[in-house]
């Protein structure tokens, strides 16, 4: 049985001013345990919305989402989330941010201090434990955010374009680091992105979403040897990127035509 089951889900986007808009319509998806799934699609297609629904931050309005058989009722530490703009607590240090989730879990002090330090080391932030987020670069902030989420050991990792706010070089670095971490401590990952190459590189499977109202248009298998140094130039990789790019391009054009 799949770990995450999304069944014919529907969601309306209701802005404080202006008209409501149908964000997701009849979305169905199954995610297996420890699978790395990428959600790919043009801007505004609702991929982040789907992520938030799975995370329990937004209410499902039609259909159902179940984790291990139980319907999702709200947010919880079993589904850790990482946001594009980091969402770090600016008044806490790097260490303080990572400790927060562990404190909520009631972990004893010595244990959580050690665990926090382990994750600080894991993401390469040793020496910056006592820095505030405002003194960190974008890449370092995102490492902190990832460490914070990994520290409380969620079985599912939800990532909302986590590298979107970083410059190209940092982004490439973070991608291979994330892959390394995931290969060492496998979790189920749902990774939202609009970058085709990123999706093919990181994921086992890519779900392509249509333009708004979002639906799953296609599911493409992208399981390769990701540790191959020349992967970005390998033929099967390039072909896959082309295949997905064609699928996405049509939707991107449709999304462009519709006024927001």
């Amino acid at each position: 049985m799949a770990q995450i089951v999304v069944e014919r889900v529907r969601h309306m986007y209701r802005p404080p001013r202006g008209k409501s808009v149908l964000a997701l319509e009849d979305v169905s998806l199954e995610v297996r345990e420890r699978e790395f799934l990428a959600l790919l699609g043009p801007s505004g297609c609702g991929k982040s919305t789907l992520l938030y629904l799975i995370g329990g931050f937004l209410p499902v309005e039609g259909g159902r989402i179940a984790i291990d058989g139980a319907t999702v009722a709200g947010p919880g530490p079993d589904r850790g989330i990482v946001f594009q703009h980091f969402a770090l607590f600016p008044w806490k240090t790097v260490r303080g941010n990572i400790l927060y989730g562990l404190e909520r879990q009631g972990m004893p002090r010595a244990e959580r201090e050690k665990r926090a330090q382990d994750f600080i080391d894991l993401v390469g932030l040793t020496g910056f434990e006592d820095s505030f987020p405002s003194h960190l670069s974008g890449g370092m902030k995102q490492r902190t955010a990832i460490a914070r989420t990994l520290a409380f050991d969620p079985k599912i990792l939800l990532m909302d374009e986590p590298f979107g706010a970083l410059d190209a070089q940092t982004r490439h670095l973070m991608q291979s680091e994330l892959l390394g971490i995931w290969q060492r401590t496998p979790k189920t990952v749902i990774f939202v992105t609009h970058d085709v190459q990123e999706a093919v590189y990181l994921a086992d499977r890519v779900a392509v979403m249509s333009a708004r109202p979002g639906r799953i248009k296609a599911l493409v298998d992208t399981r390769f040897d990701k540790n191959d140094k020349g992967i970005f130039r390998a033929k099967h990789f390039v072909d896959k990127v082309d295949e997905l790019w064609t699928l996405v391009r049509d939707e991107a054009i449709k999304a462009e035509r519709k006024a927001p």
Partner: protein
Amino acid sequence: MARLDLARAADDGGTAWRERARAVAWRVAPFASVGLLIVAWEGFARSGAVTPFMLPAPSTVIDRIWSDAVAGDLWINMYQTLYRAFAGFAIAAVVGIALGFTMARSRIAHWFFDPIISVGFPMPKIAFLPIVGLWLGLFDVSKIFMVTLDAVFPVITATLVGIAAVERELLWSARNMGASEREVLRQVVLPAALPQIMTGLQVALPIALIVAVVTEMVMGGYGLGGAMMTASRFANSPGVFAGIVEIAVVGYAVVKGMAMLRRRLLLWHPEAMEPSTV
């Protein structure tokens, strides 16, 4: 700055000296202009163009401040005014922040208080002083009440703005990590809104001081404002000017103190939110 660069390009050796002189000049300038003001004041007062009554010389004024300090009157008055201002400010801070949070959480509370705040904020609430005096008497209670009434509005407004500006991703992250709603409020909303709330407090404190001084002037008694009114009734113009200097110094110290407190509390903040008040 461009001019300094040109100077550097022009020649060597001599410019290093000129640059340093210029840097020193800019640092000395603040003291120079205040010093100039005092010298001009003294000169103008002695020139005979105005009577000593209209413009007592700084020396006379300082004399007066000194004798007040020695006699103890200065400290009693300062204490009274500061006590009323800070008492009113403290109550306004607690009530204002609490009310702001209540309005953010309860739609009914928001509906009820919003027009009251929106209409009440620009009103010269000092006009209500005679009514407050009628209800609460002529002593500290009515003065502190007036101060609270005036100071609470900027605090409420700032709290509301601060809470509304908290990014939803911060709230979601906290809930994601298992925080209860109460924990989210105390551990995330409050610190996230703090910079804006502090700005509101920094606006409210000078208001508290102004209102404290005015209520003393209207109702009399001890305090810096009251003492100034007494001095003016006795046609004691050095006393009046002494009062201005004393209140100015107190006002300046209070504002600077608040700014230092803000920097301490908000060490983590990218200092983008300094209010444009001094």
